[in-house]
């Protein structure tokens, strides 16, 4: 079920109408049942996968905690990891790795036909998210970060399948979300206000900005890049699109959680205008970044084994992050590209610090330098996002070639004849500026907090947002991160 659909609006209105009247002990089961209805809406058979992950990790979690022998603990942990990674590996990566292996064999003149071995499996929605969430639970118990496992099956099952964050995150951690299911239902007016506000905000971002940007740039990515300026604009616009699209889902998820009486941790912290790549990753898809930090980066040694090893660890994490996003060479390159930019930033720390020190001399140069760094970071992210967005390797190559390697003719032409830039691309950049403006208003004036602080302002903003969403209409393309 898509958040931006008519059926979901009806679903959530009915859910809340019944939910508030139910006794506390029934609320968990009610939400669990609805979460499976929500998930099974696409394909009821997919519920069996999430049920399998739930049962295995519930059982493994209890056994890891109850067993005193370290070897037995390890075996239960391996079972949990094998089940979840097995599910993920089979549905998401089987065709990719088999395809690459066959490609390699064919390079060595073995005549192997991929069609005989590829399964062309459809990726179950949300599998990348809930498998990571349940693995984190098992690992936390093994490490002792969670002292007592969840023994109530319903609560644990809801932790895995909680519908607001099931299909596209945030990837919640058990110490934060699970205890909330054990507590009695509590709600406050500020939670309701913030929940409603975030839901409307999410819909505005999705149906007004993200979908409009998608409509503009999709035709450009359906073919090879033919003009440097058009390709560059599409590249910049996509970076805005993916931010508003993904953050809108998180907003709606967090807002729904609040209306149901639960706190879901923020997934984005103003990542759109940031002065450096590491800063960006500290603010973007925070739940996934923390997951990789806690379960990959730190076990690899983190930053405790010297500068070189630290950079290698970063590259490994970003490679895996790329692979998590998609089973294709495009995403691998995207991940490695992000890793290289982080490594590059680390290598340039001293010169950048020197430059920053020079620019701090007065307010004007400080601000100008800050936004220059932000623009630089935005462009770097946008460049790497070519591989994220392009549907295949050849299209991505054409974009890289056209934007960076085909000379300055198209850029000069656009500079002296701005009307040569397609009007729709030009107009769409207005959305980028709007997102930038709101982003900075939030950063400097805490716009959201001021609105939530005043009931009148909150009511006016909700009505305005509602009207805007009503004008643009609800139904549209699915969220980008549903495909993971």
């Amino acid at each position, binding site marked *: *079920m898509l958040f931006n*659909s*008519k*059926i979901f*609006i*009806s*679903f959530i*209105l009915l859910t*809340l*109408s019944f939910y*508030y009247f139910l006794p506390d002990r029934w609320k968990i089961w009610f939400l669990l049942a609805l979460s499976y209805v929500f998930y099974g*809406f*696409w394909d009821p058979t997919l519920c069996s996968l999430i049920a399998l992950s739930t049962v295995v990790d519930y059982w493994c979690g209890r056994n890891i905690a109850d067993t005193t022998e370290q070897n037995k603990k390890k075996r239960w942990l391996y079972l949990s990891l094998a089940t979840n990674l097995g599910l993920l590996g089979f549905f998401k990566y089987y065709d990719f790795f088999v395809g690459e292996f066959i490609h390699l064999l064919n390079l060595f003149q073995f005549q192997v036909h991929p069609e005989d071995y590829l399964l062309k499996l459809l990726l179950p929605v949300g599998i990348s998210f809930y498998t990571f969430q349940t693995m984190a639970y098992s690992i936390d118990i093994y490490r002792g*970060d969670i002292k007592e496992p969840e023994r109530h099956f319903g609560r644990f099952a809801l932790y895995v399948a909680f519908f607001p964050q099931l299909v596209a995150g945030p990837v919640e*951690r*058990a*110490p*934060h*979300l699970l*205890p*909330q299911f054990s*507590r*009695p*239902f*509590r*709600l*406050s*007016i500020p*939670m*309701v206000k913030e929940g*409603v506000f975030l839901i409307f905000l999410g819909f505005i971002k999705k149906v007004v900005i993200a979908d409009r940007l998608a409509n503009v740039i999709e035709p450009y990515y359906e073919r090879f890049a033919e003009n440097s300026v058009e390709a560059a604009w599409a590249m910049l616009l996509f970076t805005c699109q993916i931010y508003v699209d993904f953050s809108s889902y998180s907003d709606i998820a967090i807002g729904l959680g609040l*209306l149901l*009486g639960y*706190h879901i941790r923020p997934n984005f912290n103003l990542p759109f205008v940031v002065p450096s790549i590491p800063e960006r990753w500290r603010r973007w898809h925070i739940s996934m970044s*923390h997951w990789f*930090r*806690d*379960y990959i980066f*730190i076990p690899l040694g983190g930053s405790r084994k010297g500068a070189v090893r630290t950079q290698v660890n970063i590259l490994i994490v970003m490679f895996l992050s790329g692979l998590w996003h998609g089973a294709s060479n495009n995403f691998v390159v995207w991940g490695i590209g992000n890793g290289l930019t982080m490594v590059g930033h680390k290598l340039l720390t001293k010169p950048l610090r020197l430059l920053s020190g020079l620019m701090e001399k007065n307010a004007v140069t400080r601000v100008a330098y800050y936004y220059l760094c932000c623009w630089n970071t935005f462009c770097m992210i946008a460049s790497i996002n070519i591989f994220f967005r392009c549907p295949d390797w050849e299209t991505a190559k054409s974009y890289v070639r056209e934007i960076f390697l085909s000379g300055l003719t198209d850029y000069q032409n656009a500079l002296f004849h701005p009307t040569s830039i397609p009007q729709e691309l030009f107009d769409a950049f207005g959305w980028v500026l709007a997102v930038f403006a709101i982003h900075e208003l939030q950063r400097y004036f805490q716009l959201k907090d001021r609105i939530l602080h005043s009931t009148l302002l909150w009511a006016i903003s909700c009505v305005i947002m509602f009207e805007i969403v*009503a*004008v643009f*209409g609800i*139904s549209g393309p699915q969220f980008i991160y549903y495909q993971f």
Partner: protein
Amino acid sequence: MPKPIPPPPPQPTLEETHQAVRWALGLLMTTVGFFWLLSLSYHPKAAILDYGRSSSLEWILYRAQNLDTKRYRSHNNGKGKIIWLVGSSTIRESFDEKIINRELNIQESEYRIVKLGTNRGGAGIVAGLFQYLDVQQGDIVVHNVPPNSYKQNWLDYAAFPSYDLMLVKDSSEFWDINSWNLAEKLEQASAIPFQYWAHHNMVMKGLTRWIVYGMSLELPPPKRGPRHYLTYHRHEFRDFELRKDSANYIGKEGMDFSDEQFNIQGLRKIAAFCAEKDVELRLIYIPARQAYLAEMIHQDTLAQYQTFLESLDEEVYFFPQQPEDDYLDSIHPNFRGRKALTEYFIGWVDSPQKGKFPSITWDIPEYNR
């Protein structure tokens, strides 16, 4: 070591919870109430719709809802009969209603025609118009059956926005759409209040026009007159593409003749309606240009389509193929083609010629053999 995950924040009190639940339920009821009130102003006769009507189906629906049928029956001492030409844009472009009615009047024919041809007007869509039409015993219903109406996944191909579909379908009818799975049916059928969703798009377009004019401090705009949707295009030629990778291409096994196909379902509905009203249903095929038939449809599929037409209970009448220069684009006649087809139709009213399925004289590319 990983940073510890912070525990959840402290909870509000029970009293705060009761207050908040009352608040939330109040918001819920206000939202639902607001939608219901809004839907009361969204009925088909709402003035704002006049300013938002812009698509082909919106105009054809408007014509069907407001047709002065008495005027079309005023001949024969008020007992005149009507030929209802209901179908796709090919119907719209192929016949000149004024000229046909003028000639039928001169010939003192018992018939006059009403033309209701809409873009992507497959049977599944136009079946929804009949509820507004005063079809009486003795009338004739004419519907065209072009091959692209029977494409696989026609609803995806036609890309009707859901608002348009809601204009001609009742909320209960979504359950009958066989080509949709359960999720799709639930999605559309859950759009309540129904009148709100059916007319929302037109209302928003109308409001937008008012706001735009209001901002420029001009007088309210005049009501928009009907455009070519109610008559036909006036160009001689419009650019078109004949590409195998086009969405319009119908490949091998590219058609679906099962009962689940959206327009075949619609055809059954139209046939049932005509049987109930005791009116004759004539199906017609107006051939597209030869280049289209040769290059945009696999010949095996074309043969299957021909077999399908022959298998129908209703008689299918094949109109004559027009010269390539008499087409506006790949499938619609231009003014020359319309002239010829109009003249043919006038003679066809009282003496319907069955005609022949068009034979392909254009070079058929290899991929279509």
